[in-house]
């Protein structure tokens, strides 16, 4: 028995926007009978805005609920706004889905993309062209797998199967999925800022503040004709003086708080306060 949220049950038992739009401006279709689930999405579009959406779905309870949720979410949105919707947004709208069912939300996002591509005259590329097929059983490409990993912060092969179905059939592609996952996790690791030392000595703190100001903050201010000088560091209070264009700039205080202080808090110490001195 799946642990569906009340919202999933509600959207399954009382699906919104079921049916066809006979004069639809866009139709997006993903899945098939053989796959076990399929979604056909119909859109009515005026001035680049989705004014109506309907769907037909073959699939389990969460597939029907995800389709219903998707149509509710996109109505009234511009196409660009709608394209920003991720599968996680669909799952969140439903109060979450069991992880084995996350692929239902991915199907929703893919149908939306297919429909908008259809409207914009972009031939939805055959999956073969969008990347290399990794899972033969369900026709899942490496690009689909990478996207699911990135958008949902997946960390295991099992997660990838739950979200994309890849590897859920004959399981021959599991080593390939593992390789892709390792590559993606490696890339994610590299993006993380270098971890901060736990407790800084005063001298370390001063050196780091100086380094961040000299290497990051000043060059970006100088690019706009401004500049900044580090005057003193007292505990976690950093005294700076604005120079050049910055002295007359009405948004200098905002820069000080939102850029300089935020960056120093992020890199050096979350306690840091930046104070301007003459």
């Amino acid at each position, binding site marked *: 028995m799946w642990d569906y949220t009340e919202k999933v049950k509600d959207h399954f038992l009382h699906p919104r926007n079921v049916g066809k739009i006979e004069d639809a401006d866009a139709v997006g279709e993903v899945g098939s009978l053989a796959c076990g689930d399929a979604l056909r999405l119909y859109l009515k579009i005026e001035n680049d805005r989705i004014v109506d959406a309907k769907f037909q779905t073959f699939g*389990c309870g969460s597939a029907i609920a995800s389709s219903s949720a998707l149509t509710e979410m996109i109505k009234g949105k511009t196409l660009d706004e709608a394209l920003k919707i991720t599968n996680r947004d669909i799952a969140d709208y439903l109060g979450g889905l069991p992880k084995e069912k996350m692929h239902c939300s991915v199907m929703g996002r893919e149908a939306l993309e297919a429909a908008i591509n259809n409207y914009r005259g972009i031939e939805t590329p055959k999956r073969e062209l969008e990347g290399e097929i990794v899972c033969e059983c369900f026709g899942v490409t490496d690009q689909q797998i990478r996207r699911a990993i990135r958008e949902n912060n997946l960390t295991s092969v099992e997660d990838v199967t739950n979200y994309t179905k890849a590897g859920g059939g004959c399981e021959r592609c599991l080593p390939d999925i593992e390789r892709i996952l390792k590559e993606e996790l490696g890339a994610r690791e590299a993006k993380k800022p270098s971890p901060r030392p736990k407790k800084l000595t005063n001298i370390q703190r001063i050196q780091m503040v100086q380094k961040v100001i000299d290497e990051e903050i000043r060059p970006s201010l100088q690019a706009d004709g401004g500049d900044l000088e580090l005057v003193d560091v007292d505990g976690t209070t950093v005294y700076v003086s604005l120079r050049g264009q910055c002295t007359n700039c009405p948004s200098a205080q905002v820069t000080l708080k939102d850029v300089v202080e935020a960056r120093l808090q992020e890199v050096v110490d979350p306690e840091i306060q930046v104070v301007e001195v003459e």
Partner: protein
Amino acid sequence: MRTVYFDNNATTRVDPVVFEEMRPYFCDLYGNPSSMHSFGGQVGKKLGEARERVAAVLGCDPAEIVFTSCGTEGDNTAIRSALEAQPDKRHIVTTKVEHPAVLNLVNHLVKKGYHLTLLGVDEQGMIDLDELRDSLRDDTAIVSIMWANNETGTVFPVAEAADIVKSRGILFHTDAVQAVGKIPIDLRALPIDFLVLSGHKLHAPKGIGALFVRRGTPFRPFMIGGHQERGRRGGTENVPGIIALGKACELAAAHMEEENTRVRELRDRLERGLLAAIPDTRLNGHPTERLPNTLNLSFKFVEGEAILLLLDQIGVCASSGSACTSGSLEPSHVLRAMGVPFTYAHGSVRFSLSRFNTREEVDFVVREMPKIIERLRSISPFSEEHSPSACTA
């Protein structure tokens, strides 16, 4: 809301008579049957009676019954025992449609270096005896063929299969979990070495099963410990469970006639009613060689889990071989082995009845089911066009 329980191949209601039989053995007669005092000894006597009752329904000697905790334990014990007793034989034969208790075990044994032949089934879920004959080798240690399939109810020709296997001097095991209590079994007439049954499929509680080991069959215990079950299965006996299983077997023998007349008629009524009322519906399993209580149907263009969720809304319990109900992504291995087209496999529903079901319940489902299928087909994009595309296209 009342419950209409049509999922008896998953588990059954404990018969109240069975429950009354086991009840005193929790708080009052709780002695250990191995004890020297008469307080425990009287329990030992009751176990003997239960063993006789189980033996009676199978047509075997009480000494050939080993009580276990479940069907899975029985299957593991039999197959592992056969391999351990014949270390020079490394080949196992079974079918593609076995329960995971056998299938996952033999797949595990393959990783340990054993050789495996999996027998296929035809579109009605039936095995081919010639294929069985051809699969046997000089180093075949054991052949394991289920008596009846849990998903489709197809009943295998176990008697003929056992004859073929025994004529080659090979051990024969049958997982009869779905058959015992539903169809007559007489081990006196059949050259079977191991047979497994499970209590909760025949109105006894969960946690009790039995393994028949024919006298003279080489045996190595799976559970090693005390002298219980004459050294064939260590561990203090599940006394209330064993007593319940004995009573359940006695009742099963008494109700065998009813199972094969009244329950069969109910099942047939359900089958006829649903096939007549709902277009694009097919029967999965053998039309005649089938358990009297089991009906497996596929509804085209709709998905099994969605059907079960809507049945649940009206209190009807059934199960499905659809991918989505199991958490796996592929439909049931049984339906795939039978070559059921994907267009049908995802929409399969199994109804399994028992002597506790009524005609009124059957008529209720026959009345409600068409609405459920119609509702889901009205959402489905495929219902009107009948032209499914391939998955990877």
